[in-house]
């Protein structure tokens, strides 16, 4: 260079020293302690029990290592390994029916101008409020030996694959619908305008624009439905008859035969497809988010009489089916004896006259659901905050993130059994938790951790990334900004999470069925036990109690978000 560079590096000044080790601030210490606490809790809540389960599959009844002996027994016993085929058959059939139904329903809600859209959506989401046992009970009333509509089966029995598929359809429909609704409502209107201006036909537009736009949503819905069905225990338990599937096998091995080692083996086999589906779904989701651009223009349907009428008819049919299932269970619970004596009675609600836990089990469920919502929301939200907003301790954060995603891949039955092995081990100092309400709460929080965690992460991602930096520069401790800004701004998401946890704690049966003690029996377990004892009407009544409660919580949640929050969140308005 011909010109002197203006001095940049003053020579001979302070010597440059070795690598800098950043000093921890008071904030860092708090955050690190919180991260360590939650990582520790999740290690105990999910990783350690799963390890105990894995180990159990390689042991005999005396706890000695026997290698693959249990697995060899499993695969040489047709009565056992036939269930794999059975599970796959009902799962694939259910998935292949549920997806088109949910897709058409979602299409009607997002892409047509039919009337009563919000009514249809509300009806379609009703099954979320039920334990999966309940649609199965309704099907027994409709198509069972004394069923009203038995003739429709043309000689086939409802107790078996037909009943399982029908019951699962109701159970999974709202889940598939929710995913497809999101996929269909985020499509870009500009693509449709472009396709139309290029003269593409309606069919061509559907196959070249609509389907590709929702393909990741479809893939995701496929895996979610697949996992829900293959791991569900409630429907096949009630209506499966002699048709064995993996989920009922785990229960039979453990509760019926007390063969815990074989229970562990079946659990591991059940875990396989669930884990595979989990990773496939994560992969699809990553692609989905990459496919969306911020500049997309939302699509708005234009009225078209023929199409709108067709979709209205379809949605009305599906809605009627769901309402029928709900109404049959409700009606059967309030009359003397289906279908012979239709006198109204509250006889079946006198749970204390029956085995299965009585009204105490309902109260236990309320207590358990309340604790799950309270503790779960707190832990999940703090955990998501640490994952999303902490800059330091990369390794600890990655561990937390991994542990938070793990429960999604673990079916409830597997988790419940894993808890038995881990907490009931004589050497475990936490053994005192076994058979308490606490273990039910811990188990349920962990069981539903992932979805709650993802909801919290999504909410936190919408916050400015620099709040923490700003408050550090203003010398405001991190917990103060968390309390004054982060939590209030995320209050709606926190409410969503607590409602999600409450409703699921009310309806879940799969994990807790191994963990309750006589004094901690739960309503959902009571449904199962009363059905087992042949008290079908009482089982329906208890199932309806769960539905009433979940519905009340949903309405309360709606009122809260519309009422109280609207007032405290005045800043959201422009």
């Amino acid at each position: 260079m011909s010109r002197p560079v203006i001095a940049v590096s003053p020579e001979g000044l302070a010597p440059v020293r070795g690598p800098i080790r950043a000093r921890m601030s008071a904030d860092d210490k708090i955050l690190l302690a919180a991260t360590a606490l939650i990582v520790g809790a999740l290690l105990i809540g999910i990783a350690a029990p799963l390890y105990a389960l894995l180990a159990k599959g390689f042991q005999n009844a005396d706890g000695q290592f026997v290698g693959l002996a249990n697995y060899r027994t499993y695969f040489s016993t047709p009565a056992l390994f036939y269930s794999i085929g059975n599970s796959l058959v009902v799962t694939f059939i259910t998935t292949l029916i549920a997806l088109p139904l949910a897709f058409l329903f979602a299409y009607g809600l997002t892409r047509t101008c039919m009337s009563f859209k919000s009514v249809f959506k509300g009806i379609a989401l009703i099954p979320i409020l039920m334990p999966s046992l309940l649609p199965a009970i309704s099907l027994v009333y409709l198509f069972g030996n004394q069923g009203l509509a038995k003739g429709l089966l043309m000689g086939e029995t409802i107790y078996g694959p037909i009943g399982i598929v029908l019951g699962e359809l109701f159970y999974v429909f709202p889940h598939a619908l929710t995913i497809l609704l999101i996929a269909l409502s985020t499509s870009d209107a500009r693509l449709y305008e472009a396709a139309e201006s290029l003269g593409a036909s309606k069919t061509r537009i559907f196959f070249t624009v609509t389907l590709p736009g929702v393909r990741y949503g479809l893939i995701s819905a496929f895996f979610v439905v697949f996992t829900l069905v293959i791991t569900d225990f409630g429907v096949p338990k009630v209506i499966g008859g002699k048709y064995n599937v993996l989920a009922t096998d785990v229960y039979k091995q453990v509760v019926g035969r007390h063969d815990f080692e074989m229970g562990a083996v079946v659990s591991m086999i059940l875990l396989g497809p669930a884990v595979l589906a989990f990773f496939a779904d994560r992969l699809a989701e990553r692609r989905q988010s990459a496919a969306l651009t911020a500049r997309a223009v939302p699509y708005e349907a234009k009225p078209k009489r023929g199409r709108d009428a067709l979709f209205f008819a379809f949605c009305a049919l599906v809605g009627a089916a769901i309402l029928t299932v709900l109404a049959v269970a409700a009606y059967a619970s309030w009359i003397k004896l289906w279908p012979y004596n239709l006198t109204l009675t509250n006889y079946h609600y006198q749970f204390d006259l029956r085995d299965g836990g009585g009204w105490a089990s309902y109260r236990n469920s309320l207590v358990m659901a309340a604790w799950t919502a309270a503790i779960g929301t707190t832990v999940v939200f703090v955990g998501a905050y640490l994952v999303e907003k902490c800059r330091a301790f990369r390794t600890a954060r990655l561990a937390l993130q991994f542990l938070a995603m793990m429960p999604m891949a673990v079916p409830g039955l597997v988790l419940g059994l894993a808890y038995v092995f881990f907490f009931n081990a004589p050497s475990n100092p936490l053994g005192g938790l076994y058979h308490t309400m606490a273990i039910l709460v811990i188990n349920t929080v962990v069981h539903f951790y992932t979805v709650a965690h993802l909801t919290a992460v999504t909410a936190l991602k919408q916050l400015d990334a620099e709040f923490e930096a700003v408050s550090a520069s203003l010398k405001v401790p991190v917990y103060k900004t968390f309390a004054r800004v982060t939590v209030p701004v995320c209050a709606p998401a926190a409410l969503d999470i607590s409602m999600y946890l409450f409703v699921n704690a009310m309806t879940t049966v799969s994990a807790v069925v191994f963990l309750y003690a006589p004094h901690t029996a739960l309503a959902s377990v009571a449904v199962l036990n009363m059905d087992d004892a042949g008290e079908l009407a009482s089982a329906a009544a208890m199932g309806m109690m769960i539905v009433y409660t979940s519905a009340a919580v949903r309405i309360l949640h709606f009122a809260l978000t519309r009422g109280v929050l609207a007032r405290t969140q005045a800043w959201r308005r422009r």
Partner: protein
Amino acid sequence: MGGWDFSMTALEENVREARTERAPYLSIRGLSKMFGEFAALSDVSLDVHEGDFVCFLGPSGCGKTTLLRAIAGLDIQTRGQIIQAGRDISALPPAERDFGIVFQSYALFPNLTVRKNVAYGLESRRAARAETARRVNELLDLVGLTEHADKYPSQISGGQQQRVALARALATSPGLLLLDEPLSALDAKVRVHLRREIKALQEKLGVTTIMVTHDQEEALTMADRIVVMNQGRIEQVGTPEDIYGRPATPFIADFVGSMNFLKGTVTPGGRVRVGAVEFAAGEGLRAGQPATVCVRPEDVTVRGIAAADANAFPVSVATIEFLGSFWRATLRSEGDGGFELLADFSTNLVRDLGVREGAQFLVAVPPERILVFNGKS
């Protein structure tokens, strides 16, 4: 948007030392920052004096934001030392350093009113409530937002939000104000307006300020000194006039303003031959060496030029483009090895001389306006 009221007296109590040759307020030595194998900063050293307004300027990915975040302690450097007001802050967390910061997003707390945002850093200091309220009013007045004090951030304009962020950062009277692209989220007109106001406010308060920007106009109009960065290194530190008029490297010559780069050879007479034209330029050039002549488009003169004048040569207009307040012409030199040259002409010059495509005339470049870099650059 009203003007800002600088009649406050309390804020004038802020330190406002003369910029003497004392120890620099902020001293950076041998700073490096690695992200894996990638060096975001390599061996950066810099002094900032008390009361200075310094701009870090460079293309995206040049390391300017990384350097700012290292100074704030938000992303601590891999190696190197930072000394602020005589204190080694190299390894300190942000909360133990002395700075206020305004981010590109402003990061205003959406659920707090303007007043509470500004008061946020004061409340934690356990100052008397009346004292805090007085200080907040003073700041709101200073940035002209008194009437919006009880609105939420979403209810005021982008420019107003920016001023809230500024007031919040200044509330605790930090020794150092850090601005990370504070204007780039705003409309062009608001931006120009706020540029002047931020600069005036900074001069009034005398607070040492570092601003990161990729906008050369912003840096040229606001900074006392500009630090031009490229690929994790500092290319030049200087006043805006230095950076624009005497860029130290071809990169800066190209990055700041427009520049013609004409490749040529040094003649025995110490001139640089480009095509048929010999440019008289600086001294100390070695004959026979390749050299690059740099000419800014606005330094090409047309009026009153004779063929015998220094650096005068005939050109024809290849294309001419209307850019609103001026015209930009692509000129082609006559003769062997003709080269192309961008030139900016005022509208009245274009009108007076009838400049249009195909027109031929003499142009000249004053020798003192020419920069020469050795080599082909």
